[in-house]
């Protein structure tokens, strides 16, 4: 599920600016492809995949920063960082619960209640994260973050995300 999408039209001899537009647009669309599954909250793998993709997006933005006007670009980067961090808070709890549950069979009888107590506490904390994630995406929609990012990419790299139309492999 979390495999990186191929970047359409990326060539070894590409100009840095053109590659910047193609890679960032692809990673943006890839990240947002997991949005509905993440918000539904029925399968934690969607959230995991979205977080992994958002980290790839952030890494791509770091790598290609030189192709954009610094101040404006930094504002977009901060927003992407907020997406990664918000998803990360929930993911960290999912991972902590999984790891504790996996350890249970190895623990002595008198040690298990401690792990079970921690799992119960993390489960309660995890339930508080879903509203944060939903609120973040509502705000991104209200601020038209996606369309603004795609316009910004088109303006500075010439890459039009809708025409690029990145898709999973």
């Amino acid at each position, binding site marked *: 599920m979390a495999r990186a999408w191929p970047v359409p039209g*990326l*060539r*070894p*001899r*590409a*100009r*840095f*600016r053109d*590659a*910047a537009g193609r*890679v960032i647009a692809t990673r943006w669309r890839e990240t947002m492809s997991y949005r509905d599954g993440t918000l539904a909250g029925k399968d934690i793998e969607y959230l995991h995949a979205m977080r992994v993709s958002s980290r*790839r997006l952030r*890494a*791509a933005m*770091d*790598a290609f920063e*030189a*192709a954009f006007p610094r101040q404006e670009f930094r504002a977009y980067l901060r927003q992407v960082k907020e997406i990664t961090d918000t998803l990360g808070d929930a993911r960290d709890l999912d991972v902590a619960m999984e790891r504790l549950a996996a*350890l249970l069979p190895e*623990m*002595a009888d*008198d*040690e*298990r*209640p*401690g*792990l*079970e*107590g*921690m799992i119960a*506490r993390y489960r309660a904390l995890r339930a508080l994260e879903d509203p944060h994630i939903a609120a973040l995406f509502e705000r991104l929609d209200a601020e038209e973050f996606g369309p603004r990012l795609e316009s910004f990419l088109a303006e500075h790299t010439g890459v039009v995300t809708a025409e690029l139309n990145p898709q999973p492999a």
Partner: protein
Amino acid sequence: MAKAQRVRGLDPDRRLRFNARRIIAARLDEVYAYDGVVADPANVRELHDMRIACKRLRYTLEIFAIAFEADLEPAVDEVKALQDVLGDIHDCDVQVPMLQEHLAWLEAREGAAARELVTAAAAADAGSLDEDAYARFAGSLAASNRDAERPGVHALIARRGRERDELYAHFLSEWGRLKRERFRARLEEALGGH
């Protein structure tokens, strides 16, 4: 967290490879800047910062690999392995304080439950409590005790400590190997920088 250095001399209108060489060189410098500092296992922050530097280098190699004729995947794998072991060390460094915080949380919960019971008993005029009422009070107080949860948390703290020692020894061995095997020089050769 150590910030990535701004890379000078980039030109977005030149080819990907021209710029990628400079960016990768900067990220490689950032990883090697921690050599020596990480020789002390107590340098928790520096070990974490080196992990971040490895992550940046790895992603940079992955992103720009298409611009080079040489296969960069073996280098990506080496950096990823180092990043992973540093990540596992970081997990231990983060988890031990979290587990200690959980012990404090258990104690706070017990204290809050006891205060609640005492307040309720006082409101019911504790001076006139009969034996049955006292037994119910003592039973409720015992039920709010979280002692049973402590051994597991202490066991995990000890376990993470042992794992941390093993992981750190593995990290030192791997970092030493990369240096002996001229990882940096080999990568620079693959990038065609010399």
